[in-house]
Structures are given as structure tokens and as C-alpha cells.
């Protein structure tokens, strides 16, 4: 189960908190997966008491239209700034959860770039991040890019090419090391590269790793944070209830 409690001494209008939290949650806690199981108890709360606000300072509030949707053009600079702070803060909290996934030894960012939609990118990223075969390969430091492409290929909606127009011959896969060194290209536009296994091993030895999948050549992207899948996960969960 994921639980989160966030407190701030900014003054925020109660009706705006939910919208701010929902926005922040989408690219943070809702973009992580350890084992693909959605709990019955997941809850993240945001509390704001205004204790640090100077006398007379207005509370942060979002402008809503009659249907309850945020009127984006009318958002104040203070709200924009706080929203940015909140998203980064929630993302950093969410990343800590991934780093401590049961049995995890690696922190993996899965970034998918799509020229059709961010939804397609998210679905593909989640599919990779949830795949037990991808995750066990990461644990074993095996550059098994075939499993990555396989997981993209069965992502919900992806198989319906009318919707997402996935073209295998335009799809590329790379590992991006966390030390800033050159990415390792595994597949380029549907063609497998001659993989330098020594270099692949070097990258997979690192605690942090990014997998980049480009579904075409462009620009909408989405990312999901995950971890590897080790023997320890089975050990922990084999007798959790007892």
C-alpha cells in the first residue's frame, strides 16, 4: 500500500487543494509501479494551514468554471509556482517509494516518446515497467531489449493500431546511463544494433538507469518509475500474512 501525508504552511483554499493534489499526483505517485498491484488502501493527503502566511495574504485558489474545471488562463503566479513546487515534491517522494520497492536493487525510469499521444506513451511505459520479464532481466543485468519491445507490443490499446498507429519499423530502444555517459542504442528504427555486451553490463551495474523507447520520431513523451524484481520480493511476500 502507498500512503502519503504532505503538509504545508501556505494558505490554500480548501476547494483548490483537491485539484492541486490531483494534478501533482498524476505525474508522481500515479506514475510509479513496484509490482503492478493496486492496493485497496492507497491514499495521499495534502494539508495546508496557512501558518506561515503574512497577515492579510490571500489564500491560493484556482479559478473554476461552472462545471468545476480549472480556467487555465486565470491561474495566478503564486498558484503556478506552488503547483510546480508540489509536483516536484510529490515526484521526489514517489521516487523514494520506488527506491525501496520490496527487494529492489535498481531505480529505473522508463521514458516512452510517441508522436501520437501521451496516452500511448504512458500505456507503453507502464507495460514495460510492470513486465516481470523486463524487471527480472534488469535484476540479472541482462540487456534483454526483446522483452522491452514485447511489453510495448501488448500494452492496452497499442495492439489496436488504428488508435495509436505504432510502427515497429520506426521504434527504437536505448539504455541511458545515470552517469551522463553515452546512451547505448539497442534497437534503431526497428533494426537491432550490434550490442556491446560489456558496455551494457556496465550500465546495468549502476543503481539508476533509464530505458528510452521512441515509438516514432517525435515529441509527446511520458515516463514511469519502476524497479527491478528480485528473489527478495518472493521471500518477502511468500509469507506476508502469517
Amino acid at each position, binding site marked *: *500500500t*502507498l*500512503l*502519503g*501525508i*504532505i*503538509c*504545508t*504552511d*501556505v494558505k*490554500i483554499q*480548501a476547494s483548490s*487543494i*483537491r485539484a*492541486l*493534489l*490531483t494534478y501533482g*499526483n498524476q505525474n508522481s*505517485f500515479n506514475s*510509479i*509501479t*513496484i*509490482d503492478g*498491484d*493496486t*492496493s*485497496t*488502501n*492507497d*491514499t*495521499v*493527503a*495534502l*494539508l*495546508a*494551514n*496557512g*501558518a*506561515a502566511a*503574512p497577515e492579510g*495574504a490571500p489564500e491560493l485558489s484556482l479559478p473554476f468554471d461552472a462545471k468545476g474545471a480549472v480556467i487555465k488562463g486565470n491561474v495566478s*503566479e*503564486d498558484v503556478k*509556482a*506552488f503547483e510546480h*513546487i*508540489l509536483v516536484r*515534491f510529490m515526484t*521526489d*517522494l514517489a521516487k*523514494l*517509494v*520506488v527506491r*525501496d*520497492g*520490496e527487494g529492489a536493487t535498481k531505480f529505473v525510469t522508463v521514458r516512452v516518446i510517441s508522436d501520437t499521444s501521451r496516452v500511448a506513451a504512458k500505456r507503453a511505459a507502464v507495460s514495460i515497467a*510492470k513486465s516481470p520479464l523486463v524487471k527480472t532481466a534488469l535484476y540479472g543485468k541482462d540487456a534483454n531489449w526483446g522483452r522491452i519491445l514485447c511489453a510495448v507490443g501488448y500494452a492496452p490499446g497499442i495492439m489496436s493500431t488504428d488508435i495509436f498507429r505504432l510502427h515497429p519499423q520506426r521504434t527504437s530502444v536505448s539504455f541511458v546511463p545515470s552517469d551522463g555517459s553515452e546512451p547505448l542504442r539497442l534497437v534503431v528504427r526497428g533494426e537491432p544494433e550490434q550490442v556491446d555486451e560489456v558496455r551494457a553490463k556496465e550500465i546495468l551495474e549502476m543503481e539508476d538507469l533509464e530505458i528510452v523507447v521512441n515509438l516514432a520520431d517525435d515529441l509527446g513523451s511520458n515516463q514511469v518509475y519502476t524497479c527491478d524484481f528480485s528473489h527478495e520480493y518472493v521471500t*518477502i511476500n511468500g509469507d*506476508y*500474512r502469517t
Partner: protein
Amino acid sequence: ADRSIPAAKQKYVPSSGTYPKGFLAGSAHAGVKASNTKYDDIAMIVSEQPCAAGAVFTQNVFKAAPVQTSKMTLRDRKGESMRGVVVNSGCANAVTGLVGMEHADAMAQATDDCFGRASDGRGPQTLVMSTGVIGQRLPIDRITEAIPRAHKDLGSSHENWMKAARAICTTDTFPKLISRTFTLPSHPETQYSIAGMTKGAGMIAPNMA
């Protein structure tokens, strides 16, 4: 089990922090899980003054009792005049029927009692969270006895926050606590703070709304 933090994870645990004004954190031991004989498993985070609150919740159809209770609390209060959050680890209070709902409500009421219940007739001012095993009932007497002890433990120090962050853990190997300061464009001379704790470890693929 031994809860010493693995060497590889110690870099993620802060040794100090700057916490938001007017918020207090506390914890206590209730022994929710029978095998836990010494570690705190009740956490309380409260605002000294009533505050605004909101939450996102799991969309799993089998929502645990504390999820249902907390949703109702926020709906009834419109997110206003809240006081805080009480959390137990060791038992999820999920799929526990009507008794589970009563237990979640008892946790909220026991926490409210520590401050004096609101007289506005709008129900509890406390959100409830539980984490642990599904399908088992809470040892509610032990929990409601521990809640006043968590209240007595409340404080604003880094140690208070860290103990609370530890108390919400289950299979986590380290407490997850972050705090930051910031300013806003309209009054850059005012320093604000934000602090948060989280826990996870397993059964993690959140889809909250």
C-alpha cells in the same frame, strides 16, 4: 524483525529538516501486528489550528474502510476545518465489513477527542489511513488506547517527524521523509515550508483519484 536501515539506503534518510509551522507529528506503539512488540505503529500528524485538506484515494473497487471513511469526512467538511491524519501500520482494515467502518470511525473519533471534538456537527476532523494485511480486523482497543499516547508524543522536531514516518512503514526498509522551504512570487520575503512522508514497499501500482 530488525528494522536497521540498510547501508545502501541510508543516503535517502535525512538527518535534519525544516518543517511547516503549526504542524506536529507523533507516534506510539499499539502492537497492531502481534509480532511487533516494540516498534511504533501509530502515527499522528496534526495542525495546531484547523486547516484545509484534500486527498486522492485508490480506485480499487474494494476500498478499505479508512479510505471510505476519509472520503466521507472530506466530502462532509468540504475539506475545511480539518485537524490531521491518524495512521496505523500492520493491518489494512480492508475487506472488514461494517465492523471495519466502525473501527476506522473510532480511530478518527479517538484522535478528535485528543483535541476536543468540533461542535459544528460535520463529523470527524481527522483522516484515517491504514496499511498492512487485508482481511483482518484491527485490534481497535489497543489502537484507541495508543492514540492518546501518540497525541502526547506530538512535537515539531525532526525526530518527531522521523518517528512518525517510521511508524507508517510496513516492509519498507527506510522511513521516507522530505522537507523543503520555498517562497512565492507575490511575497518573496516570506519563507514557506512543505514536508511529507510516504511509505510503500509492496502492492504498489497506484491509480488514485
